[in-house]
C-alpha cells in the first residue's frame, strides 16, 4: 500500500541526506519526496510517499523518529487529507494541433505557461490520478519533457 508521510524536521544542513540515506540504508523505497520550509523558518516539512505494508510503514516512522533532527512523523494517507502535485509538461505543438491541446488544458483546468514555435509548456496541479489522466491524453502529441514536484499533502480541517 502507498502511504504519505508528513515529516517535520529541523532546518539543519544535512537533514535531507540523513532522511534519504535512512531510506536507502534500510531498504525502504521512496516513491516521491518533496521538501520546503514551513510557516516557521527553522522547521522544514517533507512529504514522503512510500510503498509498503503496515510493518514497513511502522519501521519507517520509527526509524525516522530516531533521527535527532526529525521532530514529528505523521502518516496522513489514511486520514482525510488533501494531496497535490505540480507538473510541467512540454508537448510537441505545431500550429495544426494547438487548438486540440488547448481544449484538453481547459478541461483539466491546467495552464499554458509558455508557447514556442513548435511546443508548449503546460502546468497542471492535481492529485496523482488527474496528472496521470492528463499525461495519457497528451501522449498522442508527443511529450518532449515532463517534470513533477512530488506530492505535498495536508490534513483537512483543524
Amino acid at each position: 500500500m502507498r502511504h504519505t508521510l508528513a515529516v517535520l524536521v529541523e532546518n539543519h544542513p544535512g537533514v535531507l541526506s540523513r532522511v534519504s540515506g535512512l531510506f536507502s540504508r534500510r531498504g525502504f523505497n521512496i516513491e516521491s519526496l518533496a521538501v520546503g520550509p514551513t510557516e516557521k523558518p527553522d522547521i522544514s516539512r517533507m512529504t514522503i510517499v512510500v510503498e509498503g505494508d503496515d510493518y514497513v510503514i511502522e519501521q519507517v516512522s520509527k526509524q525516522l523518529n530516531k533521527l535527532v533532527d526529525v521532530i514529528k512523523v505523521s502518516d496522513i494517507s489514511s486520514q482525510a487529507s488533501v494531496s497535490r502535485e505540480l507538473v510541467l509538461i512540454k508537448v510537441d505543438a505545431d500550429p495544426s494541433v494547438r487548438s486540440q491541446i488547448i481544449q484538453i488544458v481547459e478541461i483539466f483546468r491546467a495552464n499554458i505557461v509558455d508557447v514556442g514555435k513548435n511546443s508548449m509548456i503546460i502546468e497542471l496541479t492535481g492529485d496523482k490520478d488527474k496528472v496521470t489522466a492528463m499525461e495519457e491524453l497528451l501522449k498522442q502529441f508527443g511529450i518532449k519533457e515532463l517534470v513533477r514536484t512530488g506530492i505535498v499533502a495536508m490534513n483537512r480541517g483543524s
Partner: protein
Amino acid sequence: MNGAQALIKSLENEGVKVVFGYPGGAVLSLYEALKASNINHILTRSEQAAAHAASGYSRVTGKPGVCLATSGPGATNLITGIATAYMDSIPIIAITGQVSTEMIGKDVFQEVDITGATAPFTKHNYLVKNVKDIPRIVKEAFHIASTGRPGPVLIDIPKDVAAQELEFYYPKTVELKGYKPNYNGHPLQINRAVEAIKRAERPIICSGGGVISGNASSEVIKLAETCQIPVVTTLMGIGGFPGNHELFLGLVGVHGSYRANKAISSADLIIAVGARFADRVTGGSSDFAKKAEVIHIDIDPAEIGKNVEPTIPIVGDVKNVLKDILKGVDKQTRPQWIEAVNKFNSNGFKDKNNEYVKPRDVIKKLYQLTCGKAIVSTEVGQHQLWTAHYYTFSKPRTFLTSGGLGTMGYGFPAAIGAQVAKPEATVINISGDGSFQMNLSELATAMENQLPVKVLIFNNRCLGMVRQLQEFYCNRNYYGVSFKNIPDFVKVAEGFGAKGFRITKDTEIEPVLKKVIDSKYPCVVDIIIAPEENVYPMVLNGSPISEMIGG
C-alpha cells in the same frame, strides 16, 4: 578564548578526565588546548584503537568515552570503532578535525566527508560551522550519546572554526525538539505484563545489553527471584545477571548454551529486557518464540516489533519499567518449570582427544584465580564464545565484547580503555592469534602508560571461527584461514618491553596465570591450542535454536 579552547573547556564541563587520540595537522589547536587543560591524553597507536579504547572506557564506567582524530585518514580510521560502538549502543564522543570551512568540498589534502560517512552509524553528528555553537553542540552531544538508547556522537570541527574567538558560556540545559526519549512505560501495558507473568507457567527472562546500560541488573534479579523466572542473557547482556545465580541458564542464541536455548524454546512467556531479538539470538528463524507470549521492554521504540512481534510492547527505561512491574507482581513458585529447566542437560560434547591445552580449562582456571572479579574483554571468534561460556561473570560492566558488529581488534584497545578507567582492576583481554595481530601495536600504548593489561592468546595458528564455518558449510574446503607465518608472540611482547609467556601443557596453566595476574606489567600469554578446536553448541543457519550441534 578560541574554538579549540572552548571545545576542551566544554569537555571539562562534562567531567571528561581522559581523551584517547592521535594528532594531525587539522587538530593542532585542539592539542594545544588539550595540553593546557586538566584532561589526560592517551596517545594510541592508531585512531581505530582510540575509538575502541573510548568504548572500553565507557563500557566499564557507564560514562561517555572520548576519542579524537585529525581530518581525513585520522577520521576514517575511527570509523570501525564508531560503528562498533553504535551496534552495541555504547556512548562515545568522537571529535575529528576538518579542513577549513572555505576548503570543504574541494578535495583538499586530508579532506573527507566524515559526517556523511558516519551518518548511518552515529546516533547523531555535527559539522561545526559557527564557533559560537561549540559549547551547545558539546552539551547536546553528551546528552544525546548518554541518554535514551546510548550511542556514538561525532563532532567534526573545521580548522578555521577552531581558531576563531568566542565568548564562552556553557549552557545548563539542552533543547532538542526532535529528541525526547520515553522513560516511563505505559501503565496499561505494565498491568498487562504483570498479569501475563502471574498467568505464565513457563516464563523466561531474556536479559540484554540494555539491562547493563540501563543499570537495571538489580531489578532483573529481583523479578527473577520474586517470580521464580529463569534467566538467559544475550552476548551483550552477559554480566547483567549473575552467572553463578541458580536461576541463570546461560547465553542464548546461535552459540548459546544447550539449557538456555531449550528453555527459551519451550517457554510460554518470554520477557525480553533491553534485548533486541537479534539474528544471533533467534538464529534468524521465523519460528522463534512462535508459541510464547512476548513482553518486550526497550527504550528504543524502533526495536519493538522489528524482529519479533511482541504481545506486550513496553517502551521505556528498563529500570523504571521493571520497578513498576515489581510493584504489581507477587511471590510465586514454579517448581515444575524450574525442575524441567534443570533437566535440560546436554549430554555434553566430547572433547577431542589430543595433547593440547583446552581453552575451557584455561578460562575456568582464570575465573578461579581472579575470583571472578576481573574485567574481561574479548576479540571476535571462537575465543570470544569460549570466554562467554566458561568465565562466570557476576557483575555488569565486566565483560567487554563486540557483539553487534563483531569487530576483530576491538578487545585489546578496549581493555586499555578499561584499565585507564579502573587502574586497580585486573583487566584481561582474551584473544585469538588472528585478532591480536589486528591491534597488537597497542602494546606500546599499554607500556607507555603503565597499563598492566593482560592478553591471553588462544593460538590455534588459524582464524578459528572462520575455519569452523568452512568445516560446517564448505565441506572442510579450507581456504585463507590458516597462517603460514606464525609470529613468536612472546618475543613480540618482549620487543615492546612487555612480558611474554607461553602455555603448551596443562601443568603450566596455573603457574603462568598466577604470575600474569599478579604482574604489574602488560603481559602476553601465548596459549597453544589445537587448530581443530570448535565452539559448541552451534546452531546451523536456518535451524531453530532448539536444534544444536554438540550441545
